[in-house]
């Protein structure tokens, strides 16, 4: 692939106080990929996302977004973000689904610019994409966790990004809606050629939906296509990232086979 990666991390390290939470991370995400970034709790996945989004600064290494250093990057409208927090937002907040999705346009709008008819069409387009247009005038707090998360996907989609980063988006979504949520992401990845980076500890489900997988525990231990990941033997796995993940993936296989 000659094309420049959308996100490129080069020997990135980061510490909170004195403890290193991310070390020697090299990772590249190319256009069109659906990369699942998996790892146990406290493995530095969410920190890595914060580093990519410029919310934290790395102590070592380089991060490039769309070929530009994250420090100088200013095309934030190209990157959509769906956080875990979106799930724990103030559910009494008085806003409609329409208003929430529309707020995603802020990154594309200049200062002092007011909302117009064109913005309205964009909002409905994004809502249609996630099959939520009939809920446009519902209060956001009335919806279920799964529906809310679709709305937050629409909020990310509305600014026409080339890349969407999702941080544990299925936390708080009931299990029967999780599959539908993954299907939606797969569809967006294939049909809109949208690049996706999803952080999750749910190692089983992600590997059957994502095109690529990266396993991380402070540093990245495996990065390759989902097929390669599935081809790995149990021994290779436990060697690669230790006991805890092995257990997790093993348990998963037991419950689903």
């Amino acid at each position, binding site marked *: 692939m000659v094309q420049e990666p959308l996100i490129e991390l080069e020997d990135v390290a980061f510490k909170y106080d004195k403890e290193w939470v991310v070390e020697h991370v090299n990772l590249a995400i190319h256009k069109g990929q659906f990369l699942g970034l998996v790892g146990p709790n406290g493995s530095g996945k969410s920190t890595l996302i914060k580093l990519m989004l410029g919310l934290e600064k790395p102590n070592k290494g380089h991060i490039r977004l769309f070929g530009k250093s994250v420090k100088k990057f200013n095309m934030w409208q190209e990157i959509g973000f769906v956080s875990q927090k979106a799930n724990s937002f103030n559910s*009494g907040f*008085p806003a409609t689904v329409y208003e929430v999705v529309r707020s995603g346009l802020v990154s594309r709008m200049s200062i002092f610019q007011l909302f117009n008819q064109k913005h309205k069409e964009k909002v409905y387009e994004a809502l249609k994409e996630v099959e939520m247009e009939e809920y446009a005038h519902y209060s956001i707090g009335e919806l279920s966790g799964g529906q809310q998360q679709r709305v937050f996907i629409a909020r990310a989609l509305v600014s026409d990004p080339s890349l969407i980063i999702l941080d544990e988006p299925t936390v708080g979504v009931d299990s029967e809606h999780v599959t539908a949520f993954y299907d939606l992401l797969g569809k967006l990845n294939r049909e809109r050629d949208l690049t996706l980076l999803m952080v999750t500890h749910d190692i089983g489900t992600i590997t059957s939906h994502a095109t690529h997988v990266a396993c991380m525990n402070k540093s990245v231990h495996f990065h390759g296509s989902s097929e390669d990941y599935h081809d790995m033997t149990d021994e290779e796995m436990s060697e690669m990232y230790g006991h805890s993940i092995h257990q997790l993936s093993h348990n998963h296989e037991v419950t689903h086979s």
Partner: protein
Amino acid sequence: MIDALFEYEFLQNAVITGLLIGLVAPLLGVFIVVRRLSLIADALSHITLTGIAASLLIEKRVSAVNDWNPMYMGMAFSVIGAVFIEKLRKVYKHYEELAIPIMLSGGIGLGVILISLADGFNTDLFSYLFGSVTAVSRDNVWVVVIITTLVVLIVMLFYKELFVLSFDEEHATIAGVNAKTIHFLFIVMVALVIASAMQVVGILLVSALMTLPVAAALRMSVSFKQTIGLSVLFGEVAVVTGLFSAYQLDVPPGGTIVMSAVVILLLSILYRRLRSEEWWKGETS
């Protein structure tokens, strides 16, 4: 009161100021409430009192100064207090709400000392605490007109930024919104509105006009726009009925305005309860 309104300038001043405040206090109040900053208005109003006390003291002690408008000094203190609250919120990152009691008690502490040095409580001070129908001068009306225009304009121009910051601050930052600047602008607006509102509503009751109409609106609205609309409507109703009854009963308008807002709030809670009961019955039958 209608006849008197045409006759007396002081009444006109009070009503005009009241209507303007009834618009901007709940308008900013919506953002204050959804960002869970309700108590900031309280802290700032107490600091405004310190400014008033300082102004009264200077007027008393320095013979060269007379006829100072205490409103200006109140405003200055309020804005400075707002800046300090922001600084303190940074210092106590994990206990952001600590900034509020620190500033509130600091303001009252200094205020009490200044008031005593200025020979204690008098009618002037009483009207600043609880509002007055007669104390608003034409000059003050103009100041409030300017501040109202400014606040409405800023809220309209920065509506999308204010909304996204209130709903999801992290998302706002990633979207490139300058959270620091907008937040600072917002808190200065709050400080100015509090200082403007004190003559009619009174320092001790200003924050009620920023929060009670919003609390009532939250019980009935689905969208953010609707919340703003209803909050302003409730604010205006409270101000008008409050001013009217204050004039009739000869009591400070702060009390009657806030009590009107309380009645509106109770009605909104009742309305919501009746509606959900109806819905419940419809569901089971």
